Each structure stands twice: as C-alpha cells, then as structure tokens.
C-alpha cells in the first residue's frame, strides 16, 4: 500500500506540475522541482523522506549517460578528447581552486575548504543535459562543450572519492561501506583494486563488442517485444551493479557501455526502450531534489545559504564564461554553455554524505551545503529562462543565436536525410543507389536474421519495429527529410505511414505498394510517391520479350514506356472512386479494356500518337 500511495503522489505531482510549467515556458525541470518542493516535508507534507527516492531515481542519470553513449561513436568521442580534457579539466581545476581559496580566506581549515571545492566543482548532468536537450541544443557547439565538461566531471568523481578520505580532520580509517557502498573490493590492496577496475571496464568493452550482438539477435528472434525492454534494462542495471562492485561511477560505466554499443544495429531499439524509463526516473530525481530542499534550515540560515548559493553560481559562472571565451565559443552559445553548467550537481549530494561518513566535514556544513546545492540546481532553469528571454535575443540574426552553429563532427554526425524502413529486396536497391551517390541512409528492419546477412555487406542497419513512433524518433525521423517505406506487408506499411504522418508531418514519404488497391490506400494516407513493387521489373521483362519476338530495341522500349504511361492514367482515374465500390470495379474493367484498345490501335496503324512524326509516311 505504501508503495502505491507514494507512486501515486509522485506521479500526480509530476503530471500536474510539469505540463503547467511547460505551458508557462518554464521547462520541465523547473516543473518537477516545484512539484517536489510542494509535496515535500516543508509544504504539503505528502512525502516526508525523499532521500531513498532520490537514491533510486539517480538511476535515471545512469540511463541518460547510457543513452548519450549510444549516440556517440568511439571515433567521435576520440575527436572530442581536447574539449573533454581541456575544457573539462580546466573547469574542475579552476572551480576547485577558486572555492578552496575563498574558503581559506573566510577562515576555514584548508582541508575542509578543498573538500568543499572539489564537491562544488561538479555540475548537474541531469539538469544541464535535460535543459539543453529540451531546447534542442545538444548538437550545437554549446551542447557538445557542456557535455565534454560533464563527462570530465563524471570521470573526476573517481579520484575525488579517493582523495576525500585523506582530507579528514580527524584521521580515522576510511569506512569501507562509505559512498562506494556495496563495493566488495575495498579490502584488497590498491593494485588489485586497480586491476579489477580495469578488468571490469575491459569486460564491458569486450562484451559490448562481441557478446551483445548474438544475444540481441537471440532475443529479437523470439519476436517478443517486452523481452527487448527487459534485456535493455537488464543491461543497464547489470553494468551499474558491476561498476558499484569495483567502486567506479555507475554513470561512467553506463556511458562506456553506450559508446561500445553505438555501432550496434540494435542501438535504436535499445534507445526506444530505455528512453521512457530514463525520462520518468529523471523526473522522479528532480522531484526528490525539490522535496529534499530543507526549507526550515533555509529560513533559519537564510542569509548564509543565500550568500552561498549566490557565491557558488557567480564563481562557476565567471569561470565557465572565461573558459568559453578561451575556447572560442561564439555568440549566444557562450551564454548557453555558461548558464547550463553554473550549479552544483547530484554527485555533490553523494560526495557530501561520503565526506560526513569519513569525518571530512561536520554535520552542520554538510546540511547547509546540501540545501545550497539543491537551490543552485533549482535556480538553473530560472537563470536559463532569463538567458532565453533577455540575453539570447541580442544574438538573434547573428546567425548563431541558438547555441552556436551546429557542429558537423559532433553528436549530429549520424543524422541521415533518408530513413529506409524494410531492407529486403526492395529497400536494398533503394539504399544501394543512395549510398553509391554519397547519401547517408539510416536503415531499419525488424528481421534479425536479415540484419545479420545485410550487415556483412557493410550497411549501417538497425534492428527495430518502425511502426513504433519512439523508434522512428530515435532513428532521427525528426531531422530526416524523407522516409522510404519498403516493407513487403501492406498492413505494416499502412501503420508505418500513419504513424509517420501523425508524428513527423514534415517528412516526405515514399512507399512501396503491393498492388493497385494498395496504391490507392497509400494515396489516401497522403504518401508522396508510390511505386507498385512488381511493376517496373515486370515491365522490363515484357519489353525484353517484345524485343525477342523481333521488335527493335528502341521501339520495344518506347512501347513499354507508353504502356506504363497509360497504366498510370488508369490508376489515377480509378483513384477518384471509392475503394472497392461497385463503380471502382466497373471502372477498373473499363479502363483496362481502353488501354488495350489504344495500344492495339497503335499497333494496327503501325504508328502511334506520340511518335507520329518519326513515321516516314507522315511526311509529304
């Protein structure tokens, strides 16, 4: 009962607050945070202990990193190494130094100041990426730079965990179950820990490369869609557990796994399955952050906490802005980057409790900082709103108002203008022609053995059921220009077309029709170009037959083309009648006879209407 009640409260809060916030232009993150604050212990008191929910919901961040990894091929990641190390490294180093310096100046012990500096240097991956994603900025310069910094921070968490216990004022043996709770190897010597850590990462990479493909294939062949959801979740949960065991950041492990699977043809199906979970868990996470804000403490220490939040945001803002300038982020993008990252992060919470357990920081400091970090996170969507309303308009018209120009070699490289659904005999020819002409295509097919066969020829093909809107979405339908539906089953074709029309109205749709009635069905669904699957091949064989019977090649060719022309006219004529109606059937009969008559008349006269002028008898 408890569980259902809690689930009901959280879901209701989200469902009510988020759409309202979105409508008011505040963005979903702020909506969740407000919802959380409202149901929290300091307002409606509907939930009293948000801590355990937050712990659970943090898993949304792990899923988010996994999904980002899926979008990022290893080669792209390698190309991003300089912003990750440069921009990210400098951000962490500079912020840590600045905060530590201020702490020491204010008379804090240097070790405590350094601990706080390390903790506050981190930003919130969840908030920054959610906001940038919502504004469609992830693939801009500002988006990739923000991501580079966040990724470095995720990596930096590992050494920070190692350093913090050394800063303890009262030296005590680091408690084994600290924040790396669950890590079963802390009692081992350091070199063995390191070796195990390496082994775990290697295991992820090797399994991702060699093991997952046959596993996915096996699952796909079962034809049970929920099994794919299960394996996707199992994968992420498994990685998280493994990472926890060796004491590595779960998010980082999930990210590595994502990158390894970025080339996998089941990627889009994985994305489509995990995405809803990620979105819900992240929402839950934001709600729990909102609920966790200790308003009582805030009231009591208003000036201190207010000063801390302000100081934190200003220091981070200044450093980020300077770095953005140093790394030549242009125009409006510089501000997007700065605003998105100027807050404390969810890792801050974890590190704070870790510091408490290891006697690095006293309880009072930890409590105050918890509130400060949560408030700085809540402040971010507000600041972003200000940026959007007041600062960005200044860059309008400069051409790069939206977070800088789109980067070609960033996250966006995998976008293709064309998506081909169904890669059987029909789709393959379409795909080969396009690829031969340098047009990248994204191919979706839902037959596992089929994919295996085609992959060997070097096509970029993804497993998935294209009648699902999510899958089309992850395949990039929102950014593609054209969808080619080359599926061999008419019901399936119609479903895909209907979904694509509903969710991606900008897409041009070309489709393969089974026969004339299917042609008309597709026409009514608004398909832009339709070709009957057997028509052109059969026509060609007919032409060759005429030629074999003695007709000269060019004449045979034109006869066939003329036949096709009249046939198309018949189809168009029939299209005006209700499908399957009496009229349709009789018209079809009449039209077919008419075409026959025209063609036979041409034959009798030894000439035809259009080639009249070539006939010697036509000249006087």
């Amino acid at each position, binding site marked *: 009962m408890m569980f259902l009640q809690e689930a009901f409260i959280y879901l209701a809060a989200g469902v009510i607050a988020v759409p309202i916030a979105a409508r008011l232009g505040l963005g979903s993150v702020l909506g969740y945070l407000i919802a959380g604050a409202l149901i929290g212990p300091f307002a409606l008191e509907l939930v009293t202990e948000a801590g355990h929910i937050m712990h659970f919901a943090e898993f949304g961040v792990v899923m988010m990193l996994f999904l980002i990894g899926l979008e990022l091929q290893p080669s792209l990641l390698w190309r991003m190494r300089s912003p990750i190390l440069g921009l990210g490294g400098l951000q962490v180093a500079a912020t840590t130094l600045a905060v530590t310096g201020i702490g020491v100046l204010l008379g804090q012990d240097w070790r405590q100041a350094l601990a706080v500096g390390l903790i506050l240097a981190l930003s919130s991956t969840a908030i920054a990426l959610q906001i940038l994603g919502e504004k469609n900025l992830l693939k801009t310069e500002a988006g990739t730079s923000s991501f580079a910094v966040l990724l470095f921070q995720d990596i930096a968490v590992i050494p920070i965990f190692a350093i913090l216990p050394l800063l303890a004022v009262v030296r005590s043996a680091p408690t084994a179950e600290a924040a790396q709770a669950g890590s079963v190897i802390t009692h081992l010597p350091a070199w063995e820990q390191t070796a195990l850590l390496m082994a775990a990462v290697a295991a992820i990479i090797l399994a991702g490369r060699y093991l997952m493909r046959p596993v996915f294939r096996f699952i796909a062949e079962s034809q049970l869609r929920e099994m794919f959801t299960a394996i996707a979740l199992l994968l992420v949960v498994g990685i998280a557990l493994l990472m926890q065991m060796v004491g590595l950041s779960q998010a980082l492990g999930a990210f590595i796994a994502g990158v390894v699977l970025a080339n996998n043809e089941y990627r889009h199906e994985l994305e489509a399955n995990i995405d809803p979970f990620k979105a819900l868990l992240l929402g839950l996470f934001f709600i729990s952050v909102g609920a966790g804000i200790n308003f009582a403490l805030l009231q009591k220490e208003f000036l201190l906490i207010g000063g801390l939040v302000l100081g934190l945001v200003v220091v981070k803002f200044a450093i980020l802005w300077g770095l953005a300038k140093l790394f030549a982020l242009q125009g409006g993008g510089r501000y997007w980057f700065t605003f998105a990252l100027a807050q404390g992060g969810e890792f801050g919470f974890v590190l704070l409790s870790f510091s408490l357990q290891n006697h690095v920081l006293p309880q009072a400091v930890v409590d105050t900082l918890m509130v400060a970090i949560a408030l700085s996170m809540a402040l971010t969507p507000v600041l972003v709103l200000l940026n959007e309303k007041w600062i960005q308009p200044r860059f309008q018209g400069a051409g790069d108002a939206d977070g800088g120009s789109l980067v070609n070699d960033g996250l966006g490289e995998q976008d293709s203008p064309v998506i081909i659904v169904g890669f059987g005999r029909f789709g393959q020819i379409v795909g080969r022609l396009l690829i031969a002409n340098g047009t990248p295509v994204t191919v979706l097919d839902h037959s596992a053995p089929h994919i295996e066969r085609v992959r060997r020829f070097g096509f970029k093909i993804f497993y998935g059921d294209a009648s699902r809107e999510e899958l089309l979405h992850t395949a990039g339908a929102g950014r593609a220009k054209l969808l080619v539906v080359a599926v061999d089953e008419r019901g399936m074709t119609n479903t895909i077309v209907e979904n694509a029309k509903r969710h991606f109205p900008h897409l041009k749709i070309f489709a393969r029709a089974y026969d004339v009635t299917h042609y008309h069905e597709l026409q009514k669904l608004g398909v832009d170009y339709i070709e009957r699957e057997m028509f052109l091949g059969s026509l060609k064989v007919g032409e060759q037959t005429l030629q074999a019977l003695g007709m000269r090649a060019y004449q045979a060719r034109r006869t066939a*083309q003329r036949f096709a022309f009249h046939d198309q006219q018949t189809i168009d004529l029939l299209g005006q009648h209700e499908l399957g109606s009496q009229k349709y059937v009789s018209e079809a009969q009449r039209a077919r006879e008419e075409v026959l008559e025209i063609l036979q008349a041409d034959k009798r006269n030894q000439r035809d*209407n*259009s080639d*009249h*002028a070539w006939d010697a008898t036509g000249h006087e």
Partner: protein
Amino acid sequence: MNQILILFAHPALEKSRVQYRLAKAARAVSGVHLHDLYELYPDFMVNVAREQQLLLEHDIIVFQHPLYWYSSPALLKEWQDLVLEHGFAYGYEGQSLQGKRLLNAISVGGSRETYCAEGNNHFTLRELLRPFEQTANLCGMTYLPPFAVHGTHNMSEAVIDTYAERYQHVLKRLQREIPPLDPAPAYLNDWAQESEG
C-alpha cells in the same frame, strides 16, 4: 502582352554556371513560362499533346540551351522531332503555329570573334542557327535574332550576372514589342543594350 514560353534544355544543370543563372533570371520575370524539359522528361518520353497545347497558349517561343555541336542538346531535338508534327506545325492542315515567333537563347564557349568567316568557327552564329530559322519558316513562324552569351568557359560571376540581367531585360521588352527585322540586330543583346542606354 506577348506570352513567352521558354523551352529550356540542359542535361546537367547542376554543373552549369551560365545557363543556371539565365534560367533563374528568366523564371523571375512574371508572365514568362519556363519549361524545364530535362526535368520533365528524363526518359525522353515527350508528352506531345501537352507540349502542343502549351505552344498554342504562347506567342513567342524561346529555345534556351547551351550550344552543343552547333545545335541543341538531344532532348530539345527530340522535342522538335515529335512535337512539330505534320498536320499540327506544318503541312496543308498544319497552321497552328502561324504568326508566332521563335528564337534561340544560347550560351557558347567560344568568343563572338571566332564566329565569323575568318574565325575558328568559320560561320557566324546566325548562319549556324539556320536549321532553327528554316524550321520556323516551315511552321509559318518568324525567326528572331538570338540572345547569346559568348566565352562562357572562364567567365567571372560578375559578368554572368550582367548577362542574366540583360536576358531579363530582353524578355521584358519582348513581352511589350517585337524587335525590328529589317535591318535586324545581329543579337538581341544589342537590341536590349540600345534600349538600356
């Protein structure tokens, strides 16, 4: 106002600099109908009935094309072979095109100076266009002097732009009036220039 139909033929417009700009300029003139043959008939199946109908609706027919081997690209020749039928365009009952005007708007690699008896091309452009002229005659149409862009091989963008502008000028003037034929200007370029100045 004279209705102008441009029968435009270029098999590789994506590589063209001059004809691309000329076609764009022509499209921008209101009332001018530019008919892109290679785009409409990629498999050379010219729809004769439709083309004849279009001819009936216009007063001035322009063949716009690059000059290939002193003639038109293949599809425009195909178009002539098929559309200008006996009984429609010529012959006892073929009176449909009587009184209309025909001209070529062409781009040529060689300079204007090479198109003369002493030059490499040995004939003037007007002389080389005689098959078009006689086609017009047989159909009862008046053949007008060509609009021509010479020396397209290494023409600067700026010069192309002035030609495009001049072409627009010619088309607009043709909508209002017909150039004098006795004596006729060698090129319609000259006629347009004279009115500009």
